[in-house]
């Protein structure tokens, strides 16, 4: 006997993600899932974002790594609430890890939650966490050919930050060619070239992020 199933293999994760989304929404929290390959500058982007926004809005950060709490210590120095998740080998965060982390996050005290995913351009694209926004950080030394190599990731995200534009004179990265490749995979994505070292372009990113959070909260 054949039984039709037609169930998404990740439906168990999606259900928990929906639950997270509801909990975050009830607390009026705007959540951003930040993904990238290792070393692209996820933590630097978070640090720069926190630095510029923490006096205007209460921010919390969840740090995901296979091991260590190096990033949590770095971000913790800014004085905002940080929860570290160690996946113990898993190459991505999933919704149930976020559900556990949220129990340790002072939800009534924050309005924006930044989640730093594990450095990987494959699996994090598949796992919903309950976020409002998916952001990919790429960096110029990585080369501009990554969209075609990791099409699902580039197709899934709402925004792409090109970090380390201060290195453009020294590396093979053509922003125009990169943007064309991204556009063929994802016509709606916003692209933000910036440098966490020099500060160039960061204000444009912050302005856009702020607008997204305000329009999601319905107050703008």
């Amino acid at each position: 006997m054949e039984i039709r199933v037609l169930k998404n293999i990740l439906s168990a994760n999606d259900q928990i993600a929906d639950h997270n989304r509801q909990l975050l929404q009830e607390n009026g929290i705007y959540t951003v899932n930040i993904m990238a390959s290792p070393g692209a500058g996820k933590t630097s982007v978070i640090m720069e974002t926190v630095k510029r926004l923490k006096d205007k809005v209460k921010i919390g950060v969840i740090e995901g790594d296979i091991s260590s709490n190096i990033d949590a210590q770095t971000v913790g120095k800014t004085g905002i609430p940080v929860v570290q998740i160690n996946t113990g080998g898993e190459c991505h965060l999933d919704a149930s890890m976020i559900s556990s982390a949220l129990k340790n996050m002072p939800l009534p005290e924050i309005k924006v939650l930044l989640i730093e995913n594990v450095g990987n351009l494959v699996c994090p694209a598949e796992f919903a966490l309950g976020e409002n926004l998916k952001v990919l950080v790429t960096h110029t030394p990585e080369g501009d050919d990554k969209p075609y190599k990791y099409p699902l990731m580039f197709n899934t995200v709402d925004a792409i930050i090109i970090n380390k534009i201060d290195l453009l004179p020294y590396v093979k990265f053509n922003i125009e060619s990169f943007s064309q490749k991204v556009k063929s995979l994802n016509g709606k994505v916003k692209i933000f070239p910036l440098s966490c070292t020099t500060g160039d372009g960061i204000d444009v990113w912050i302005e856009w992020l702020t607008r997204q959070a305000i329009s999601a909260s319905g107050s703008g």
Partner: protein
Amino acid sequence: MFDLVLEQAKQSGASKVSTINLVIGEMTGVVGDSVRFYLEILGKDSIAEGAAVNIKNIPAQARCHDCQKEFVIAEYQWICPACGSINLEITGGKELFIESIEVN
């Protein structure tokens, strides 16, 4: 995935799962051989032990917004083969689901 298989089999009162039919899109990066390998290990001592695993692979596909052509993405060319546009909508390749199971 394995839990879903057991859950569905249990609901139908089956005593044995003989086949698991999966649909996997090319863009998901899920590797069929690895899925077979995991299912073989997970299946041991369960009603799904030794079940055949059939995988329908779906290639990446797109529709061109400019000329409406639908096409399979060959060799990672994310460009419309008819008009050269990159104004595309991805229409296939992201699937990842259990289509059906066959039980006794």
